[in-house]
């Protein structure tokens, strides 16, 4: 299918279902608008078949619009420098689910991005001696406005259903954003910080260790990121993940970062993760997933006092009714 629908949110040309729910997309008004009038009269025999509105790849903005009306979604922003272990944490969590493990006291209830999960997981699998298992390669740096989102749905023992969206964004976005908040390349980072329900920030223990002569740069990048995020995070659940925990970071650097975190994001928790202990990867995600499970309650609206005269303070008897 070469043409695409006039509806920008419709991906029928990529083999998904019609966005407006027509069984046969040629019957849809948005699709017909792409066709010249004369062709519309020609009878083309079509074999109707039903499709689904997801492709299995990472989700974009249009897909969120498709998913979010069905229930509470929890968008988790995964932030950190390049090669800090963000994708590895995501993959580890998928592999744990694949083993039937529960996550945040809830069990797997479906996923719209199984294709993307599987292509990440494929890197860790051993099916050919020529291809030893390894970590997923670097997430490519895109200039997209929105990071690719990985999805799974969970249901807990009480029957509560949640759609969990995890960002798999390239580390460069955040490094750039930490330096220059309105940098054009950091559009995706800004979107993420605006919309996420919770944050995981990655500290790469290996880069902060004594063995790395550039540990000062790594510390600086991380502190800048924490300081930047501190302005935006408000009371959203946040955790600092000491990734690659099997390597000990320099003690002074670790203390300085912990101190910076306590100042910038006082409510943030610290958690260690290492691929040597697969359950530490799920624990790290649970640290923010559990508090984000229930949406924060709306605050009471306090009407500001604009004038001190009694007349201006009168708001009618119904206020107290």
């Amino acid at each position, binding site marked *: 299918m070469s043409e695409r629908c006039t509806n920008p949110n419709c991906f029928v040309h990529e*083999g998904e279902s019609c966005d407006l729910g027509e069984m046969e997309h040629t019957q849809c008004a948005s699709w017909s608008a792409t066709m010249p009038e004369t062709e519309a009269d020609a009878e083309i025999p079509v*074999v*109707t*078949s*039903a*499709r*689904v*509105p997801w*492709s*299995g790849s990472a989700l974009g903005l249009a897909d969120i619009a498709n998913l979010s009306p*069905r*229930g509470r979604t929890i968008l988790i922003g995964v932030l950190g420098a390049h090669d800090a272990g963000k994708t*590895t944490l995501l*993959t*580890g969590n998928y*592999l*744990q*689910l*694949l*083993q*039937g*493990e*529960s996550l945040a006291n809830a*069990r*797997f*209830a*479906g*996923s719209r991005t*199984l*294709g993307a*999960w*599987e*292509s990440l*997981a*494929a*890197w*860790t*699998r*051993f*099916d050919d001696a*020529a*291809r*030893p*298992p*390894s*970590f997923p*390669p*670097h997430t490519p740096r895109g200039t997209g406005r929105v990071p690719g989102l990985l999805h799974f*749905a*969970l*249901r807990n023992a009480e*029957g509560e*259903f949640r759609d969990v969206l995890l960002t798999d964004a390239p580390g460069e976005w955040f490094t750039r954003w930490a330096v220059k908040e309105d940098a054009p390349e950091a559009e995706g980072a800004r979107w993420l910080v605006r919309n996420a329900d919770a944050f995981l920030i990655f500290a790469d223990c290996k880069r902060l260790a004594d063995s790395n002569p550039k540990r000062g740069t790594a510390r600086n990048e991380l502190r800048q990121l924490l300081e930047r995020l501190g302005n935006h995070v408000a009371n959203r659940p946040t955790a600092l993940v000491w990734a690659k925990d099997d390597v000990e970071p320099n003690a002074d650097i670790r203390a300085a970062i912990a101190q910076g975190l306590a100042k910038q994001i006082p409510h943030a928790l610290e958690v260690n993760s290492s*691929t*040597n*202990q*697969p359950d530490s990867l799920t624990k790290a995600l649970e640290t923010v997933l559990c508090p984000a499970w229930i949406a924060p309650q709306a605050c009471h609206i306090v009407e500001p006092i604009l004038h001190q005269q009694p007349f201006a303070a009168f708001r009618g008897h119904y206020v107290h009714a």
Partner: protein
Amino acid sequence: MSTPEIVLLGGSYSGKTHYAGQLYGRLLRNPGLLELRDTPADLSALEEVLNCLENGHAAGHTSVGTWTEVLLPLKDKRGHMLDLRWPDYGGEQLQTVFSERQVTENWRSQLCQAEGWLLLIRLRKETTYPDALAELANRSADGNGTTARAGAWDANARWVELLQMLLHVAGVGTVSRREQPRLAVLLSCYDEVTADDLLPTQVLAKHLPLVAAFIDSLWTPDAMSIWGLSALGCLLEPSSDDENFINQGPEHQGWVVTPDGQKDSDLSRPLAWLLGAE
């Protein structure tokens, strides 16, 4: 008289045809919870498998394009009459649904109307990568970042994606737990599985944990059940001539393991459960 609809979902070599043949023999000659009222008018769909089983060998592979149905006029223990259309088709059709990500109209209308889904999974044919996490931990230090990965999907992910797609096109939402359509999972060729003392549910959770979690999360406990099924009771080859089948008749071979772990020779029990006749 009711005419319940069911769909039978099973990939290639999952044992759909053998189950159909053995089920027919049971219903007619060795009935349990369900029995046949009359001989079906058209038996051509089962002709080959019945012949093969009477002579103690396995039936051939159902060809890709096949779509046939046998109308089974049934009666349950309470005297309720029901007409069940039992489908048989080449298992590749289900594979095509997955690979082309579309469901033909024929399938879709069946899925929409069906009160019960019968899912046949042959665990030994399913490829999983259960040790991937350990591999991740024991990685070699040198990153092998350039080797492209094609790789087939883990069977867990493939079944979940397939079920999600079928549920979606059937218009079944997944946000609340489902009571309809009822789901019976038959772990076929159960004689191949070393179940020890595990219940069929636990066997599924052991071999396909993600599928087990998905089914648990999506259906209410009353609306789904998991069975072990060995339609033949042993392995038959197209060239074998099993004496038991020839002498005693195929209707005395094969068994199911009920969700509570009891072995039962009544092959119609999962069907009876699905139709609410148990």
